[in-house]
């Protein structure tokens, strides 16, 4: 359940809606996606000014003191508007780690920088062999006299292109448990290969070869709990964004079916398509109900691993189902890169793929029953 008062939440929702309808035409979004940095710094500063970047941080650190449920509305709007700014990467994932790291000057400083919109930080947790298992870490951190020496590879680091620094998970050679380390992007031994994803977002492969960092850059020791919790928060954020994208996709599909004619009548009059639309609606609505139920219980207790796995499974299944049917009903035109439809589909397909897809979490759910 939300921690913020209703009037603040209403204000946030209103500002998000306004931003999307005033500042975020599809053409503009596409231009941003293919720009060098892949998003708009102006927008990001606006996010800071509107306090969107401050929502989930503690008030004592300059945040609004909200929780994850307080950003669900914003993220749903982001999904609806196909926003490309790297909010989940910097604010949700890195932000959640910093909020729960040791209360050092470093983490306080980084939190303040995020809230002000001055930095991007990316969490680098995934590895080639790890699939979505956040505890499957081969990257090592060895304590030396000068600090920690980190070696390994990280893949699919979201917004790595723009990250001023990374938070990197590594097996501490002392404790034999994972720790989290702060590594500035320009640290020696760190090399990055940046990619664009099919949905326009950016992701990076990082190589760490004898990367030496000072001891105070160890943000969290025994990070298992926090890493898992951060995955939970990130998965929930993705699921909220997906809700908005699915809503928009359904709306566009219904509108198109009412306008497009075949055999002299609108295709919305064909029972087969009507039933497809009805199934899309049912799929979206039940996914939304599940999402809201989990959010409403959050104040009492974080979602259990089963709860969040079930939500990610359902959201991924729904994303594919609604995407595929949206294209089918649009016909050929839905297959073109020119129309919005396909880009919503690509974002939803990516959302399923991030932080463990339906199949991955269904398997973990199956093993937990």
């Amino acid at each position, binding site marked *: 359940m939300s921690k913020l008062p209703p009037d603040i939440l209403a204000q946030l929702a209103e500002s998000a809606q306004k931003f999307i309808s005033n500042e975020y035409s599809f053409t503009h979004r596409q231009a941003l996606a293919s720009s060098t940095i892949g998003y708009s710094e102006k927008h990001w500063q606006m996010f800071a000014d509107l306090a969107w970047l401050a929502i989930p941080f503690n008030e004592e650190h300059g945040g609004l003191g909200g929780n994850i449920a307080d950003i669900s509305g914003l993220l749903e709007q982001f999904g609806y508007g196909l926003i490309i700014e790297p909010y989940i990467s910097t604010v949700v994932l890195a932000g959640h780690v910093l909020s729960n790291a040791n209360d050092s000057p470093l983490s306080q400083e980084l939190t303040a920088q995020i809230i002000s919109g001055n930095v991007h930080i990316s969490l680098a947790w995934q590895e080639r062999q790890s699939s979505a298992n956040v505890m499957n870490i081969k990257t090592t951190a060895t304590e030396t006299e000068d600090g920690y020496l980190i070696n390994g590879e990280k893949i699919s680091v979201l917004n790595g292109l723009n990250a001023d620094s990374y938070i990197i998970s590594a097996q501490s050679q002392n404790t034999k448990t994972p720790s989290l380390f702060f590594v500035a992007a320009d640290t020696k031994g760190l090399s990055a290969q940046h990619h664009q994803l099919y949905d326009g977002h950016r992701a990076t492969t990082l190589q760490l070869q004898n990367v030496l960092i000072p001891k105070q850059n160890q943000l969290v020791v025994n990070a298992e709990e926090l890493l898992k919790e951060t995955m939970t928060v990130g998965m929930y954020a993705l699921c909220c964004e997906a809700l908005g994208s699915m809503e928009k996709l359904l709306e566009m599909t219904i509108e198109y*079916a009412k306008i497009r004619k075949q055999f002299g009548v609108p295709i919305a009059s064909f029972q087969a398509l*009507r039933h497809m639309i*009805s199934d899309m609606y049912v799929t979206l609505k039940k996914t939304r109900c599940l999402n809201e139920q989990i959010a409403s219980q959050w104040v009492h207790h974080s979602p259990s691993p089963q709860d969040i796995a079930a939500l990610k499974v359902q959201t991924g299944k729904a994303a594919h189902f609604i995407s595929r049917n949206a294209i089918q009903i649009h016909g050929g035109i839905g297959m073109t890169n020119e129309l919005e439809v396909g880009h919503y589909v690509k974002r939803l397909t990516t959302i399923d793929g991030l932080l463990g897809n339906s199949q991955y979490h269904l398997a973990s759910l199956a093993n937990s029953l």
Partner: protein
Amino acid sequence: MAPEKNMDLGKFRNEICDFLNNHIPDDVWEAVAKTTSYFPAFSAVMTMHKLLATKGWSVVNWPEEYGGPGWSDEQRRIFFEEYCSRGLPMMAPQSVGMVAPAIMKFGTAEQKAKYLPPIASGADTWCQGYSEPNAGSDLVSLQCRADSDGDHYIINGQKTWTTWAFEVDHIFLLVRTSSEGRPQAGITFLLIDSMSLPGMEVRPIIGLDGMPEQAEVFFDNVRVPKTQVLGTENQGWTVAKYLLEHERAAGGSFQFVLRRELDKLRTLANVTDDGHGSKISSDPVFKQKCAELEVDWRCLAASENYARRIGSNHPEAAHMASLIKLESMNLTQHISELALDISGTLALVDQQLALHIGSETPPIDPIEVLTVMPTYLNQRASSIFGGSHQIQRDILAKLVISK
């Protein structure tokens, strides 16, 4: 489960549990174990109805003035959760959830006084005479006629799919009293006090599982006083529509029933061999399918909770009613399909004798297999009755596309 919001609710739950754990007769538990249908054994339904009536719990959705217990939403939720998750038989919906609310809304003072108390106590039981052989999901084309004859109607025609018609003692009926105007304009809602008036005949319909549950009811010049109209002559469609909406809003407990079905599925898997030395319950493919059903169940539960929260006057109430019908019935069917898939050939044996309550024929070992096939067969109706899946999709499409 979340901790109860306050101590009173915790106490309330304890009181319910204590009663349900300690005061249910054995033959009801036997009926629970042998239930293979949406409708459990009628005898067990009525045993429970009368038992709950002694506690004032038989009509928990009714307003207090008519005998309801005056519970809060939360109390009702707790009651249904505890009641349904034990698999106990729900009160007959035709009596408690259909005809009664219609009488509360449209009945005269006399009708209310005459009919409601015996429904609450379990003394009177009702069935629903809506469907006809050529009017299934499109009720407005019904043809059973009630012709005026002084202060009586003379009824001629046939009703079908009348659940429990051979068990109950009352029937409420949609009949055609006029063929003028739009088809739904000439329909009248009648209350009939007996199942054996001169000219009435009830013929049970045997289902695929070999059991009677539905019936045909024939009317050959059956005379009924005009005072038996509920509401106004030719305005029966208004009553029927109200009732349909009320019925929808009264839902919301499939989640508890289906939770139990999912758990039973795993119990079944625990006693079923895969032929290679293991039990099906350890098969990763079975576990994956269970996980899929588990996700579906969570969606259904969340959808029901949402529908209850928004209530029946919300613009989305009709959407949610169709959604819940589709999803709960899909899940019901899928559970029964998976149960059949994992059962061995012993599930193919027709054990009707062993399924009767109080039967002396013992079920074949393992007992978990007893209900698998009849449940599977019976559940084929879940996507047909109460508005088929196709009809529900038509309704939803209309709501969603033209909004």
